[in-house]
């Protein structure tokens, strides 16, 4: 190996040590600039993928160069359990598992944020200044153009139901959705929908009738849709879909017109956070216009900040969809989602309805 490539590989190794894209325990590390006085640390645990987190962290680091940021990407389950095992490890917890974040906050594990930005944050997007929703991600349907061309537009759940009932045969095995039994997100959407829509169970039956495939993650569903195994995807995470289907013109993302669930990532500062001031600064950043603008423009996650307008913001989405948007409420209703007996009851019913269709 010649000298430049040796040097390059050494640098690569160094960089890889610093920016390690290991799947099991992904971390991002932004050391503090040395000439900015005493450095503080910040440890962020989140269930956001690194590409989505990066712009945010960079933006924060630019604003606060004296903070050494370390971000750890974990699954929502791992995040939750790691926190319970070591509540003084992380400074900020970001997760899309709304029920679990809510439970932690409800039981008093979160620290209240008293900054002016926190006071101004809209009441529907926070809980008690302890829990803050920072993204706005609608749950969408993905439809292959072929289906549209053949069977007509699918604009909402009613259309989907009609489609499945009429053309179940044609779509046999070509529809995919979450398995509520195995996917936390899928279960959450199911329970919310069952409350929302009186015709949900009809939809479940129709899905069963069409022998819908049940997936564990959005990634799986997207893979199948891109590959063409599936023609219709139901209840996908809009942000993820947007990212992956950016250059898949044959697949159309449909935000349902009749009603559309919206999920939000929730951030909290643990009570025993090792660097509370740094944590507060970070959370402040996330709910500031700057942070939210980064979210809107550089990520597909969507911003909540009421001052922001334009694509990628809740405001714009509301203007487009208005009444149809149904954000999952950050409230005690989420505790029902965690209830074991409730889960048993719902899954029993879900499976019964699903099977009925077949």
């Amino acid at each position: 190996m010649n000298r430049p490539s040796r040097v390059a590989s050494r640098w690569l190794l160094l960089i890889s040590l610093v920016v390690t894209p290991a799947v099991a325990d992904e971390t991002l590390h932004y050391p503090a600039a040395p000439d900015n006085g005493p450095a503080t640390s910040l440890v962020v645990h989140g269930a956001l993928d690194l590409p989505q987190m990066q712009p945010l962290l960079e933006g924060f680091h630019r604003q606060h160069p004296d903070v050494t940021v370390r971000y750890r990407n974990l699954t929502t389950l791992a995040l939750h359990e790691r926190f319970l095992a070591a509540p003084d490890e992380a400074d900020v917890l970001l997760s899309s598992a709304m029920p679990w974040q809510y439970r932690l906050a409800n039981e008093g594990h979160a620290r209240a944020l008293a900054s002016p930005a926190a006071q101004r944050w809209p009441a529907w997007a926070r809980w008690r200044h302890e829990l803050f929703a920072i993204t706005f991600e609608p749950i969408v349907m993905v439809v292959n153009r072929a289906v549209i061309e053949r069977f007509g537009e699918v604009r909402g759940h009613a259309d989907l139901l009609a489609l499945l009932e009429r053309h179940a045969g044609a779509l046999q095995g070509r529809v995919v959705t979450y398995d509520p039994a195995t996917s936390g997100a899928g279960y959450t959407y199911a329970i919310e929908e069952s409350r929302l829509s009186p015709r949900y169970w009809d939809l479940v039956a129709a899905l069963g009738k069409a022998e819908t495939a049940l997936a564990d993650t959005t990634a799986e569903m997207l893979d199948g849709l891109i590959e063409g195994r599936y023609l219709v995807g139901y209840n996908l995470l809009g942000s993820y879909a947007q990212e992956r289907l950016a250059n898949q013109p044959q697949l159309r993302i449909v935000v349902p017109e009749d009603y559309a669930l919206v999920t939000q990532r929730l951030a909290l500062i643990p009570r025993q956070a090792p660097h509370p001031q740094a944590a507060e600064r970070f959370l402040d950043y996330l709910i500031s216009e700057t942070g939210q603008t980064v979210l809107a423009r550089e990520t597909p996650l969507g911003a909540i900040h009421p001052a922001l307008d334009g694509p990628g913001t809740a405001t714009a989405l509301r203007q487009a969809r208005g009444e149809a948007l149904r954000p999952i409420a950050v409230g005690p209703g989420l505790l029902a989602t965690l209830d074991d007996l409730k889960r048993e009851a719902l899954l029993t019913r879900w499976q019964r309805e699903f099977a009925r269709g077949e």
Partner: protein
Amino acid sequence: MKRGDSLYRRLLGWLLLPLLVLGSLILIQAWVDAQRTADRAFDRLLEAASLAIAEQVQWQDDRLWLDLPPAALEMLATDAQERVFYSLVDRQGRLITGNALLPGDPRQGAEGEDTLLYRHIDWQGLSLRQGVRRTRVEDWRVREPFEVRVAHSREGRDALAARLWRANLAMILAMAALATVGLLLAIRAALTPLTRLRRAIRARDPRTLAPLELSLPRELAELRDTVNELLARMRRVRANQERFIGDASHQLRTPLAGLSARAELALRQDDPMRWKEALIAMQATSARTARLAVQLLSLTRLANPEYRPDRVPVELNALACQAVRDHWASCHRQGVDLGVENAGDEVWIHGIDWLLAEAIGNLIDNASRYGGRCVTVKVEHCPPRLIVEDDGPGIPEPRRMLMLRPFHRDRDDLAGSGLGLAIVDGIARTHGARLQLSTGHDGRGLRVVLQFPGDTS
């Protein structure tokens, strides 16, 4: 007058203090009430939530089963975004489902009775209000009791209680302010009679003793009446004094007129014998007048209530001896045998020595003037007594009391002033002693006894 001890301020203090205490009590009551009202309002939520949950409890597959309605939990969180906790517990106290194991109803309920308990609990460092519903699932085979325990934190109800209390506070403070203003005005109005009284007294001529004529409220009226009584007494005293002075000046004028006339008459004559006669007569009169003047002075001094000399221990034997010493020469000149008879031991009393000396002097003078040839001053003890006894004609019993009145003279008494016994009576009263007139020994003459109180200590 102590500075700052104002009736106005006292009244104000005494009235404001209870007002303050009352106000505080009302505030406390209002706070308790606000808490209770807020609790009642918010407990409704606990009631409704527990009911909503209880209605979804079923008996299924040989166990308790709950299809938790999310609405039940959502109604427990108001705008204040309370923390919410729930537990479903079976008859043994085992948790069927819930996000926390809340404490249960400690009371022993009667079987078959649905109960609902509200209380405050401190759970895991949180301050919560809890509702515990005891009820049962009724199936046609099974009657299974269970408990639904719901709880939420207190932010909402505390905010409501504070709001209610603040509204009350504003009202109560406003009323207190009004009451205080009213109080100040009322006290000022109530005290006006005092101002009127003060002004009425100031407006008086300082020399007048006329009664205060002023309409006053009852309490001040008593004061006014007391003052008027005092003024009436002073008027009586003044009338007395004026009458006395009138009598006295009359008494003095008469002999002075006599002197003047006699001198005038004598000057018209040339005979030295006549002159000598006139001078003898005049000398007697002027001596008498002089004595009268002295006695008037004594009597005035005795009658003056402001003049109260201190009583000191006086030994009566020594006093009597001194009196006899002082008067012996003049008595001897008049041919009167004056002597003293002491008591065996010393006789001490509390008195004013010169007053007693004057009393003895007056008695000796009387005795020698009114026919006594032998006058004796005696001292006795047990009880302490000063006695002056003579062997003159004495005073018949019915007239004895009359002799004590000033200016009263027996019809046979031309040379006397009528004051002597009155003076002695006054001196006796000053000493708290009793004056007794009786017949001398052997049934003749006069015996005047001054009996002092107490023993000879």
